[in-house]
Structures are given as C-alpha cells and as structure tokens.
C-alpha cells in the first residue's frame, strides 16, 4: 500500500522530551497510560506531576460521558443580572436549597440556609452589599466616637413591621436585652455582649461599649432587629414560635413554611424602600443534588446560590443546560491542612518544608481544574484586608529536602526521615529520636478532600515524610475522640469560613485554644504546644480587634498574613469558589461572597 503522505514519517512527532510533549502525546493517543508513566519517570518527573499529567489528559483519552460545553464557562457577575426582555411586574421566583433551614429566628439559626431566607424578612440597622461595604438599612447613618467605644445610629423614620407596629429605638434595646438574656440562649452574642448601655433620643440610638471592639458593626450593625411585641412573649415563647412565624421590616412577608417542602414569602407593600417587583418568593427544599439540577434545567426552580450551589464535580453537566447561566464567585472559606504543633511539626523549617513539598499549584490547576483560588494566608482575595503581595511557596522538592536536613532529619533504614524531636526550644531537636510519620486526616465522605489528601500524601512520602491518609465521619473527627486531642503528628484537611470582618483571633490566639475536648476556640494546632510565634500573633490579633481605623487595621492584618506565611502554622491551600446558577429569565440576581441569598430580593424580577 502506498502511503499518500510520503513525508509522514519524518513529520511524526519526535520522541517526547518535555512534559508538554508527553501531555500532547497522551492526548493524541500515541502513548498509553503505562507508557506515559514509564517515560515520565525516565524523564525524571515526580509522582505528583505524573499523576496530574494523567488527570489532565484522561478526559480526552477516555471521554467522559457528561454533557460538555467547551464554550460555556462560569460567569463572574459584578452587577445584577440583566436578561433581555422587559422586567415584569409580579410573578414568582423560586430558589432551591439542598438543606432545610433549621429556623427563621435570626438569633438562634445556625444555618446559612436559614439566613438566606430571613434576611428578606427581618432587617438590621446596616447591611452588607456585594462588595463587602456596609450600607444603611434601618439606620440611615451612623458614626463612631473618638474613643472607639460609642456608636451612634440615626434610625429611619416611618418604618413599620409587617404586623403594623412602628419601628423605634425600643425595638433595638429590646432586641439587645433578649439576645443577652441567658434564658433565651442566643446562638451568638458576639458584639452584643460588649454593649454597656443603649440610650434613645428620638430617632437617635447611641450604644456605649465596655471596650473597643473593631468588628462591632459586623456583628451588631448587621444584627437583625425583631419587633418588641414579639419579644414581649418572653424567652421561651419567643424562641419557640418566632422562628416559624417571623415578623420584620423587610421587603417580604412570611407566608407559609411547609416542612421539608418549601417556604413561601410574599411582597410587603408597606416596605420603606422600593417594594419587590415579584409577588412571591418560594424557597424549595430539594435535598438531592441530582434532583436540584434536574429542576433547574426544567425550570421548576429559577435559581440557586449562597447555601446551595452547583458542586464543582457537577459543573460540566450544569454548564450544558440550555437557558441556565452558571456564575462563580470566591467565598470566605479557606481550605488548609492543620499541622498540629507536636514533635517535628513545632519546627518552623519543617513546616516550611511541608509547604514546599505540597503541590498546591498542580492540585489547583489539574485536579480541581482551576475551580478554586490559591491562598497564602487567612484573608480572602478581594477583601480590603487581603495582602496581595505575598506569593505562595513554589512546589520545590529540593528546597523541602534541604530544610528538613537543616532541621536535623535524615533518612533512616527504610527511607523514612528520622531525627531528634524538639523539647524546650521548639526549633532545636534535642530529644528522643523519632521517625517523621504524619497522619493526614479528612472528613469521611468528602471525595474532593480525599483526592487532595492522596496527592499531598504521595508527595510528602516522596521526600521521606511517612504520610498516611485517614478519615473519620464528621461527628467523630470534631468530637472528643478527634485527631486534635491525640498527641500524634497529624495534619487535617478542612475549611474555615471567615466572617465579613477580617478579625482572625479565633484561629490563632492563645485564648482560642480549646481548654478541653469539648471546649471552644479555633486554634486547634496549638492544643499541646503553643506556637513558637504565639506571643507575636497574640499581640497582632489583639491589636486588630482594638483598632477602628480601617487603614491602620489593614496594616496590622498585612503583618499577620506575612507572619502566617512565614511560619506556616497550617499549610494554606486554596479559597473555595462557589457556583451559583440562575435561569436566564431572572433579573437583578447578583450572587457574591459577602451577602446571603435574598439580600437584594427587591431588585429581582422575571424578564419576559
């Protein structure tokens, strides 16, 4: 047989020499998986690189039978949606959630999904907008005294609750008193417990604090105000009934809650601002992700967001839906690996080495397909306290090995590093000789966490840090038997979620180390030994809470971030990205990281 292309042999791709060649050869189907691995090893690439390479090329090679929409990508929405067609007056918008709210009582609800609904019904003095700025709500203006301890709010006139009561300063005072009432048992008294006294002078409310507390407005300023008439029922009655029959000043009135089915809100015609364009908002409870996507596609629900979004693993499928737009925005959740400060993990160099040996970039780009944002510290990109100048440590096995050697760790008989653990001085190994073996935990059932941990473990093992991936169910891992209360060298992969205020004392301060296995506090790594930089981080996080000037505060948090990046108390991995979705006929929807679902429900409309 005559080859129609005589030169084809010469034009055949050369033997793959670089990673890119390998990838291309794999995509072209010229190399089998096994051959890719063999050649990559021959070319000297490490296991994680090979793994990610295979992943990057596997979809093309095997074909994933989901709807793929190569041209459609998630949209970053910086303004409310504006679909074609006229904005309709009236109609219903339905949102979906995979979790039923626990209660609509704003002071005891522990769920985001609860807040997603009650912010449409009950308002606070101020409210966050999509850019993390505080905007007037029930207060038209506020000022902070020079001592940083006096907050004065000017209340909006002519506001009425849904039951007809006029909104006054008494409602603010009564709300404060009830939140602080121990028999009521508010879920969160943060900020409210700093109030010494509230005085009312006409439409001016002045709050005096016992001490300076910079995050005050992010708790009390946006705290929800309930009507005095409802509060008057007493702690028990108020707690048991209000959550199922909430009354507020918001743009929507509570209509009905069918358990496990849906919550219905109607337009409040007496609203002080622009009344809603829609007549009705329905919050559908659809516990199954499959079903939720189906209903989004068929139009049974119009949008999802905030508490319920499209999971990254379903994104390709959802992007294929006609008439549906998938959005994306960063969140305030950061994924990281806790490094419990015991034995070698107390040494800064060791922690830095583990950071160098964590292939975050590959994990983010290849495994998670860039559907997360790299993180270097605890402030979210885009937030005013974020220091964008810090660069993540590169993936550098040699540097990691060098640092471990400097810390006195040398390979033992089976290749596992071993050395003397530090005793008095956390930076000096002078105790007994131990192998460097880490347990890497994740919450059982979280597939993505498991995948990430496997890749990290593979890499850490490759430099002689014996890493074993382990999992437990969520209640066990955070319970008294959890990893953080055993004195082993452990890492744990999980996410913390920041509030809108940059305060981060909760994660790092020595006062936030749980005192017992059931104690409170977010500083889990320092349970057995304080951080070697504990005094410094205590001083900084305290200062951040006491500084009310935003620029000065920013400087403090920049310092915190530099310190965290230098000391690596935890391996910072990435910021989670959320993928809300809406049908293309919905206008006014602006999903973002800083507000709850219905924050601008009065702007929503159907286009037609």
């Amino acid at each position: 047989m005559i080859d129609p292309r005589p030169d084809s042999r010469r034009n055949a791709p050369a033997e793959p020499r670089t990673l890119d060649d390998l990838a291309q050869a794999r995509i072209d189907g010229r190399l089998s998986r096994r051959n890719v691995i063999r050649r990559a090893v021959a070319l000297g690439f490490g296991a994680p690189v090979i793994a990610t390479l295979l992943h990057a090329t596997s979809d093309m090679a095997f074909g994933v039978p989901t709807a793929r929409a190569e041209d459609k990508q998630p949209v970053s929405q910086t303004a409310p949606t504006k679909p074609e067609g006229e904005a309709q007056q009236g109609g219903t918008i339905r949102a979906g959630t995979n979790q039923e709210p626990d209660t609509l009582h704003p002071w005891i609800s522990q769920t985001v999904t609860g807040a997603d609904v009650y912010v449409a019904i009950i308002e606070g003095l101020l409210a966050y907008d999509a850019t993390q700025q505080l905007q007037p709500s029930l207060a038209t203006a506020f000022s902070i005294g020079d001592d940083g301890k006096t907050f004065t709010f000017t209340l909006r006139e002519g506001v009425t609750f849904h039951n007809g009561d006029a909104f006054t300063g008494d409602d603010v005072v009564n709300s404060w008193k009830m939140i602080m009432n121990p028999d009521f048992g508010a879920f969160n008294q943060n900020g409210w417990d700093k109030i010494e006294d509230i005085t009312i002078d006409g439409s001016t409310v002045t709050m005096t604090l016992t001490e300076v507390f910079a995050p005050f407005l992010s708790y009390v300023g946006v705290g929800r105000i309930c009507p005095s008439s409802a509060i008057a029922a007493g702690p028990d009655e108020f707690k048991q009934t209000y959550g199922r029959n909430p009354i507020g000043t918001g743009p929507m009135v509570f209509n009905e809650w069918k358990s496990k089915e849906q919550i219905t809100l109607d337009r409040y015609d007496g609203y002080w601002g622009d009344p809603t364009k829609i007549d009705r908002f329905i919050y559908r409870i659809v516990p199954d992700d499959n079903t939720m996507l189906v209903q989004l596609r068929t139009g049974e629900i119009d949008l999802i967001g905030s508490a319920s979004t499209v999971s990254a693993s379903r994104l390709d499928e959802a992007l294929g839906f006609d008439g549906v737009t998938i959005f994306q925005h960063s969140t305030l959740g950061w994924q990281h690996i806790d490094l419990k400060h015991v034995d070698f993990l107390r040494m800064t160099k060791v922690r830095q080495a583990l950071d160098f040996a964590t292939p975050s970039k590959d994990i983010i780009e290849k495994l998670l397909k860039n559907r997360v944002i790299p993180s270097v510290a605890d402030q979210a990109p885009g937030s005013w306290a974020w220091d964008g100048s810090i660069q993540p440590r590169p993936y550098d096995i040699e540097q990691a090995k060098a640092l471990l050697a400097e810390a006195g760790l040398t390979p033992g008989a089976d290749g596992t590093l071993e050395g003397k653990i530090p005793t008095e001085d956390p930076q000096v190994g002078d105790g007994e000789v131990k192998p460097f073996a880490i347990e890497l935990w994740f919450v059982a059932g979280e597939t993505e966490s498991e995948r990430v941990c496997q890749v990290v473990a593979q890499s850490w093992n490759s430099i002689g840090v014996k890493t074993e991936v382990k999992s437990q169910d969520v209640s066990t891992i955070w319970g008294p038997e959890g990893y953080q209360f055993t004195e082993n060298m452990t890492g744990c992969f999980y996410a913390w979620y920041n509030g809108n205020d940059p305060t981060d004392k909760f994660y790092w301060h020595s006062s936030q180390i749980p005192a017992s296995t059931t104690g409170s506090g977010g500083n889990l790594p320092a349970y057995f030994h304080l951080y070697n930089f504990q005094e410094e981080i205590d001083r900084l996080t305290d200062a951040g809470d006491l500084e009310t000037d935003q620029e000065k505060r920013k400087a403090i948090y920049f310092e915190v971030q530099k310190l965290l990046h230098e000391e690596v108390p935890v391996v910072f991995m990435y910021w989670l990205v959320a993928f809300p979705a809406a049908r293309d006929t919905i206008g006014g929807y602006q999903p973002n990281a800083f507000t709850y679902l219905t924050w601008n429900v009065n702007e929503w409309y159907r286009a037609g």
Partner: protein
Amino acid sequence: MAAPGRAETLAASLPGQAARPPRSPWQLALARLGKSRLAALGVIILLAMALSAIFAPAIAPYDANAQDLFSITAPPSPEHWLGTDDLGRDELSRLLHGGRVSLLVGVLSALIATGIGIVVGALAGYYGGWVDAVLMRLIDVMLAFPAIFLLLILFSMIGSSVSGVILFLALFSWMWLARIVRGEFLSLRQRDFIEAARAIGVPGGQIIRRHLLPNVVAAIVVSTTLNVAYAMLSEASLSFLGFGVPPGTPTWGNMLNAARPYYTTYPLLAIAPGLALTLAVLAINWVGDGLRDALDPRR
C-alpha cells in the same frame, strides 16, 4: 428492615405456620423438583459468591482501595471491566471485596442472632414460669422498637465498625427464632419422654440438648438462613444511609451510597452492587425455602 413485610412475612411462613395445599403425588414430586431446582441454583450461586469472596484478593484485578485519581468514574474498558468509581477505584475489584464484607456481616450476625435466639427461647420454653414471663416481655419490648431508627441512632452515636454492625444487627434479629423455639419447647416439655427424663433426674441442660433441641433444628436452620439475607439487606440499608460499615470499606451498601451522586450519569456504579446484593439474597432465600421443605417433618 429492608422492606416492610419481609421479616414478618417470612417468619409467619416458618414451619408450623405455613399453609400447604393438598396435591397428588405426581404434583408433589413435580413441585419438589421445581423447588429443589431453585434451591440447587441458590446453592450454586452462593458457593460461587462465597468462593469469589474468599479468594477476592487473588482474583480481583486490582487492590479494592487502590485509587487512580486521574481516571475517575471511567466507563467499562478492558482495563476496568466495570469501570471505576468516584475515586478511580476498580469497580469489579470493589464488588468482589464488597461481597466479602457483606457476606461476612450476613453470616456472622445471623449466627449470633441464632445463638441468642436459641438460648433465650430454650430458657423461656424449658423453665416457663417467671423466667418465661420476663423473657417474653423483653422480646415484646424488643419487637416494639422500630429497629432501623434505633440502629441508625446507635451508629450515629457510637460510630460504626464492621463488628459493631454485625453485633447490633444480631441484637435486633433474634426475637422471632426465640419465640419459635420457646413455642416448640413449651409443647414438647409436656410430652411423656421429657417427663420421664426429668423423673429419672436427667439435668435440665442435658434434656434441652439431647431431647428438645433436635426437634427445633429445622426452625433454627431455616431462620438462620433467612437471617443471613435480612442482615445483608440491613447492612446495605444502613450503609446506604451513611451510618453502616465505615465509608471506604468496600461493601455493597457503601458502594451504593458512594454511587448515589453519580447514578444518573454513571448508572453502572449503582446497578452493579445492587444486582449483586439482590442475587445473593435471592440465592439465600431459595436455599432457605428448599431447606424448609427438606427439613419439614410432615413431608
């Protein structure tokens, strides 16, 4: 627990309660043949499953927990006959290893349940009186518990393990056998040969072992067989809800649980373990029915 009607209906059709139509010898023979064929088929299926479970590590193409993170939910291929799951583990290997745990849970918990059932039933039936009254009230209370609710609560509280699942499933499935054993003992102990044995001073334990137990062997064997099926279904139900054998351990129930988010896009992940479980339970039920007929003294 797997489905309402199952345990009770099966129990209700145990020896002594089942109704039987009169048949000509010819019909009877034919029926027996048909029945025994199913039973034989059941035995063959069970043997095959047991063998593949025992030798799973040898015959499974991959390690059941070996993850190939970069070939996730792959469709069937020559390399992976049943494809891979959401962590890139070989579905066929997990199916084989899963049979191991599922069968182990079924057999062990049924044996434990049988042990408890015999002891409690024998004590109550032989001694009668207040022993009987106390044990029967205990059985009543246990039967009044909605078992799945309690098991779910227990496992969510104490955390689950394979041994925990075996033990607690056994603790909630011995009552019917105990009742049957007691009933038989109560009627038997009035009989002459028992009275005689007692009169000549044969110890109680010996009477139970030598004279009474042989009379309830049929009930014990059948009930144990059916309990194996019940325990396997229960394990799968609990694991499917996420509160059975710890996630990660390959069992058919866990595989179904893990397949749930993907079952619309990768239905095979849900179909394969479900079919395997159905087949196993089917075979056990066939064998159980065959045993019942074979051991029925009235036949």
